[in-house]
């Protein structure tokens, strides 16, 4: 990476994305004062560092998966601004309902990297006891939900959660992440509709990364964009440059404040791009051209924020190097730990189905524990 002043183009959208996207960071790293969220030096550096860390973790996990050391990973390459800056804009008292690409947001809130890696390895220390696939973490203490795979289900839950807070007159906003594909789901419709009717303090964070596995955004909807779907539910919709950390921060923050004031939900379309495969199971070359990827790489969200930092004199090559090597050290140690830990015990299979273990699961646990072992277990 070059720390010299450079020009990073504003997100290079194809024609479908060309209009009216809210942008703050200019090509040279400067900002439009009227739009700038005016983050402190500390906050903006922290945000940048979190984005860099998220990417480093992503890249490492992809490698571990290829080496067969981790079973699966679903990453956020290219979506670091839209994920981290939105997380930063939510207040610590607000709750995040994740899709599955937001481990960066969880870590941003202080969730230990070690705990995240224990989840990736599904070991005995994993909070979810190796019961779920990698990247299906949970972080209640961090005001962060529980990842599940079915697309969209978190949306109505995020609305119900914020609704509960509203009924209790507690100042809680929920921020819920989902993809462009998820806007086609039933859950999106139910969640947006309920949120609109009951003026629920939920901020809908649509990561429009252009792809739903192999299906392009224009196959999800004939509407002119995703933000404009808000009108059908009587709420405002905003299109925001999701590769621009400052634009994302500002847009999300305003929606959070609006929600907290009791003015109801907002739909935010964060225009970004999934630079990697859908997950480690996917090879995107089967359905999209390199050119498209290369185009978006030029407005890499990390480069864009870095240009801004450099413009403000807050970051240089030396700092970058130190930070990268700090991340490497931390990652190395956490991976070692996670790999050294044993698998969860058999008993873990049979608990937490219900609050108290019913007789049939007690019997099944006994049978399983007593029985012969399978030839091979994963892990």
């Amino acid at each position, binding site marked *: 990476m070059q720390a010299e002043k450079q020009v990073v183009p504003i997100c290079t959208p194809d024609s479908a994305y060309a209009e009216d996207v809210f942008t703050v960071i200019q090509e040279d790293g400067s900002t439009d004062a009227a739009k700038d969220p005016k983050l402190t030096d500390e906050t903006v550096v922290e945000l940048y560092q979190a984005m860099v860390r998220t990417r480093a973790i992503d890249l490492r996990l992809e490698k571990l998966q290829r080496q067969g050391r981790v079973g699966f990973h679903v990453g956020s390459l290219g979506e670091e601004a839209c994920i981290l800056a939105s997380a930063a804009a939510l207040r610590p008292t607000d709750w995040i309902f994740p899709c599955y690409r937001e481990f960066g947001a969880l870590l941003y809130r202080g969730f230990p990297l070690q705990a995240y890696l224990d989840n990736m390895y599904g070991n005995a220390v*994993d*909070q*979810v*006891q190796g*019961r*779920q696939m990698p990247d*299906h973490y*949970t972080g*209640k203490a961090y005001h962060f*939900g*529980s990842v*599940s795979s*079915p697309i969209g*289900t978190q*949306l*109505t*839950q*995020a*609305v*119900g*959660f*914020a*609704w*509960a*807070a509203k*009924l*209790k007159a507690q100042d809680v906003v929920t921020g819920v992440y989902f993809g462009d594909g998820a806007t086609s789901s*039933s*859950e999106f*419709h*139910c*969640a947006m*509709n*309920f949120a609109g*009717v*009951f003026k629920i303090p939920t901020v809908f964070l649509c990561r429009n990364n252009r792809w739903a596995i192999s299906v392009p955004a224009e196959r999800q909807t004939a509407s002119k964009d995703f933000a404009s779907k808000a009108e059908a539910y009587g709420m405002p919709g905003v299109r925001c440059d999701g590769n621009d950390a400052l634009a994302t921060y500002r847009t999300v923050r305003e929606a959070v404040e609006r929600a907290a004031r009791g003015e109801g939900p907002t739909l935010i379309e964060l225009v970004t791009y999934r630079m990697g495969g859908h997950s480690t199971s996917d090879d995107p070359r089967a359905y999209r051209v390199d050119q498209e990827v290369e185009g978006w790489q030029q407005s890499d969200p990390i480069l864009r924020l870095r240009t801004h930092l450099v413009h403000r004199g807050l970051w240089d090559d030396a700092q970058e190097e130190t930070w990268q090597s700090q991340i490497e050290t931390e990652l190395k140690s956490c991976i070692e730990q996670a790999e050294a830990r044993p698998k969860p015990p058999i008993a873990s299979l049979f*608990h*937490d*189905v*219900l*609050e108290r273990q*019913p*007789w*049939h699961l007690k019997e099944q646990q006994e049978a399983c524990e007593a029985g012969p072992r399978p030839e091979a277990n994963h892990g």
Partner: protein
Amino acid sequence: MGQMNMVQAINSCLRSEMTRNEDVIVLGEDVGKVGGVFRVTQGLYEEFGEDRVIDTPLAEGGIVGAAIGMALYGLRPVPEIQFADFIYPAFDQLVSEAAKYRYRSGGEYTVPMVVRTPVGGGIRGGHYHSQSPESLFIHTAGLKVVCPSNPFDAKGLLAAAIRDDDPVLFFEPKRVYRAVKMEVPSSDYTVPIGQAKVVRAGTDVTVVAWGAMLFEALAAADEAQAQGEVSSEVIDLRTLWPIDIDTIVESVKKTGRLVVVHEAPKACGFGAEIIQLVTEKAFLHFEAPPVRVTGWDTPFPYTLENEYLPLKHRIVPALIETARF
């Protein structure tokens, strides 16, 4: 104390639970002003206000999804699905989410929610106002399933369900709603989840039933006694899952015979499961093949509804034949 039918008993329970705990809220289609299409929530809107008795848009997935979110927050939502037949738009939220939250989060999150919904036939509802989908939810690990047969149990079981920290499917036999009256305390009490009840003692054959069919089983037991001198022990299951297997096994060990009655279709209905659980625990006690008397493997019909339901006329011969096997 006073005479109540099941509608009144459930209403009384909701009122007392909502008074006891302001985290209890009711939501669903038409539950507010009009008090539900069966009037089960009548008066709650006036008493607790529109924040706690919420008429929602017409979307069961939204109702249950939002209720799960409320439960995650710490409320105790009691969503109503207008008819069990309309629970399918919420199926994903129930099966993929409510049932799995505790397990998948390592116990970090729980969903203390009670989904109330009327089940069963007997009101001339045809395909879509008559179904009994309990086995779909019993098959789904992580849910409790309850189905009271009478007003007293309805009130006590619903109170227990609302105070329970697991998601509960609370099936209300709509045929019983106004058909049975009994003494129900106006004070609050619980009937524990997970306990069946022997409601008629007998020696020749064990009959397991629940909800509206309990009364058919009881009537059949009387008739089998009169017609064939068969002594039937009738068990009201009350909680379908987790099942109180001990009560059933104990009875079968005594009678050596088992008949299970349910309205739902036979194939992969709960009857097969009950019988196989008993087989696993007491096979050698069977003196006759265990028998199911159930709805047929068809959609629920309209005109011939009484030919579809496993009413007394079909239970009596099952009892006599099993006893005489």
